[in-house]
């Protein structure tokens, strides 16, 4: 699999908050059309890793490249190009609370792509159906939804414009197992059938097994282990073993 050029890469990326070192010369690559899952304990810098690639935080050192070009790269540069083709789910969903559910989902279509509201709403309803939400929620406001429903609206917003690269920060956290399975299958479908690249964060080993081509374990600001799903059970890395063990306990 070495042949494929990485579509996204972190090279020696360091990030501090105050005096606290969160990422310590992190190296990570994602190949085009593959699904990478980042795992790791709470507070180990998983969300920060995504936000750095999305240009929402600046690295203190190191480079991040998208399609070989350095991010952020100026006004019309690589970062804008990444936004064009990316679908992002934030950990806290980050829905616009002054807009209805369907206006949230259709936000990019209306405000960036200049689509008419009617066409955009139809696309939004279709995306909502993919994340198993009823059309009836379309006219509600985010504050009227449960946490899991908000998460799914965030997912719908991320996939509505048929992105090439997906960034999902804990897509199944807070969902019941049936819905979580459906979301996992949706991600697999997007990657396998539509050829998307996916970078997902999850705590759930079971979910990782379903959606990942590759898994990277983040610990103490570095990738301490990286391998395919099949390698997961053979890994001797203590952080990985802890995750696999507790994942197996959850499954029973």
């Amino acid at each position: 699999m070495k042949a494929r050029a990485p579509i996204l890469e972190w090279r020696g990326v360091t990030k501090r908050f105050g005096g606290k070192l969160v990422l310590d010369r992190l190296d990570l690559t994602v190949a085009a059309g593959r699904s990478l899952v980042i795992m790791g304990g709470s507070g180990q810098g998983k969300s920060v890793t995504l936000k750095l690639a999305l240009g929402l935080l600046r690295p203190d050192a190191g480079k991040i490249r998208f399609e070989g070009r350095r991010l952020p790269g100026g006004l019309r540069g690589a970062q804008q190009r990444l936004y064009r083709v990316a679908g992002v789910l934030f950990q806290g969903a980050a829905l616009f609370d002054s807009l209805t559910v369907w206006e949230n989902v259709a936000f990019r279509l209306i405000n960036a792509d200049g689509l008419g509201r009617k066409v955009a709403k139809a696309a939004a309803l279709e995306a909502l159906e993919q994340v198993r939400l009823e059309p009836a929620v379309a006219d509600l406001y985010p504050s009227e939804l449960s946490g899991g429903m908000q998460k799914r609206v965030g997912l719908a917003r991320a996939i509505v414009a048929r992105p090439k690269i997906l960034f999902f920060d804990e897509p199944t956290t807070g969902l019941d197992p049936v819905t979580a399975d459906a979301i996992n299958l949706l991600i697999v479908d997007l990657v396998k059938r539509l050829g998307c690249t996916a970078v997902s964060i999850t705590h759930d080993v079971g979910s990782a097994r379903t959606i990942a081509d590759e898994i990277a374990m983040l610990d103490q600001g570095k990738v301490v282990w990286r391998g395919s799903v099949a390698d997961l059970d053979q890994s001797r890395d203590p952080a990985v073993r802890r995750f696999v063990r507790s994942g197996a306990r959850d499954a029973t």
Partner: protein
Amino acid sequence: MATAVPLTLLSPVNAVGRLTLGLMALVGSLALFAFRGLVASLSLPWYGGQVLRQCVAVGFMSLPVVGLTAVFTGAALALNIYTGGGRFNAEQIVPQIVALGITRELAPVLAALMLAGRVAATIAAEIGAMRATEQIDAMRTLSTDPFRYLVAPRILAGIATLPLLTAVADIIGIAGGWLVSTLSLGFNPTLYARATIEFIEPWDVTSGLIKAAVFGFIVTLMGCYHGYRAVGGARGVGRAATRAMVWSGVLIFATDYVLTSLFTH
């Protein structure tokens, strides 16, 4: 050599230096923000729906408070001028000074202050909450520039509606003076009105409206700037709202002085 000076003697110098650097960073970031806000406001594409919504929120909804402020100010001004004028046996000067004071100074400044209280804090809280819940980050990843979608409509609404509010305040303020003068100071209604109209010059009104446009920019800019930079959750949002209000107020008075002295020469 620096080592020849005891470190304790340097600490006041350090403090002054840090303060200066901090101040320069602040002015720099504010200037940069204002520049980006203006560029987004004055160039296409515009989010027309957002601009319209903000014009209603910023301008139209402020009509009652601005109107009430103006009528009472005009009335009180007339009474004061009557008292002051009486000391020179010049009570008949009331309509002229009321008109001048309202149009050149009080209508724009008071309308701007009411806006600072009503709107700057609201804008800062709205945008600050969006910052705290990553909605602004989300907007960027959705290929939508928050400066165009959030900042520009508010600034445009401020620049466009505060002059209109001021024009309304001009009329209501002068009417307030007229009301109290004819009802309790014994002025003839027609003569008072005629004195006002004959005295007032277009520049009195225009200069006030120009001030208002600048104030409208300041108030909405302060709301956006402090909201955009809010850090630390709900507490940060509260702080941003207070700062936006206080800074608007101070900057309104400072700018008022600068503009007035420019207009005077």
